[in-house]
């Protein structure tokens, strides 16, 4: 994914994904990418800017167990022009002691796909 400059994050299935929890996952991935030096925007797939380099589609599965938590986060990175799948990550955290915020899980996903970002980046 060298040379990708503009990322756009959207839900893979948009129907029923406009509540606070799903928006939190969306913004968590957008923020995690930006924090790691990959400028990103987010929204509906239909609103994706034409100059996007990488389309990032997410699937988040929230579960209720006395409180809502993010059970799993699937993130796929596509070349926005060719449509080729470049990377795919699935993060799942079920045991109570292992449950983490969507922000933490999004950062793990980004660091798994871009391990070089662990060294830091220039904005």
């Amino acid at each position, binding site marked *: 994914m060298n040379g990708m400059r503009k990322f756009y994050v959207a839900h893979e299935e948009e129907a029923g994904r406009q509540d606070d929890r799903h928006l939190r996952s969306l913004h968590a991935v957008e*923020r*995690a990418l930006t*924090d*790691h*030096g990959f400028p990103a925007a987010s929204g509906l797939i239909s609103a994706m800017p034409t100059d996007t380099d990488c389309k990032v589609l997410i699937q988040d599965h929230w579960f209720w167990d*006395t*409180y809502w938590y993010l059970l799993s986060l699937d993130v796929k990175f596509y070349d926005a022009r060719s449509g080729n799948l470049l990377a795919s990550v699935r993060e799942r955290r079920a045991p*109570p*002691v*292992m*449950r*983490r*915020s969507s*922000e*933490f899980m999004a*950062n*793990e996903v980004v*660091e798994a796909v871009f391990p070089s*970002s*662990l*060294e*830091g*980046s*220039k*904005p």
Partner: protein
Amino acid sequence: MKRSIHHRHVAILTLTFLMLAACTGWAFTVPIIYETGSTAAPTLPCPVALSLSQEFASYQHSVHGWNYHADFGPALQKYASFVARSVFGDAQVLDSQSSRPEARLLLVPRVTSSDLAEHGGVALGIQWDFKDPKTGQTLFTMHVQCETVSPGMNPLAALRRAAGGNMTNLTSLTIQRFNASRGLQQLSGH
């Protein structure tokens, strides 16, 4: 046998206590026991300034439903100051009035995520921005996050252990990342 009964009683009592607290709206504070010790010789010596926002310096995490609450602020202040001194040596913490003209870098940490999971799981994510002290422009960023799991029958004791352990682990990981970063080596003139 006696030991398992004792543990079961402790767990039941703690859970009852937590449920009562949840019903009455009383919150348990998870103490964060974190000592940094003394710093070794800095690895990338250069004068830097450290700016801690009010949000960072008084950061708190609350778990709704179970009424846990952790005051991370004092530990985060110690963490940021210790990391800056360990890596750069000459680090001055700025308050709202002060400035440091000779500083080569302005370090600004912020919390990106925090978690307190029942039964002893704690996590923290910190974004470090390295800015030009004169212009305020961000020159470099680094994200560090760390989780520590220390399960136990007593949820509060487990959280206390995990919270302290996580601050120590986060400190080691951050120093390790800073030292390994070629970008930071260049910025600090090494």
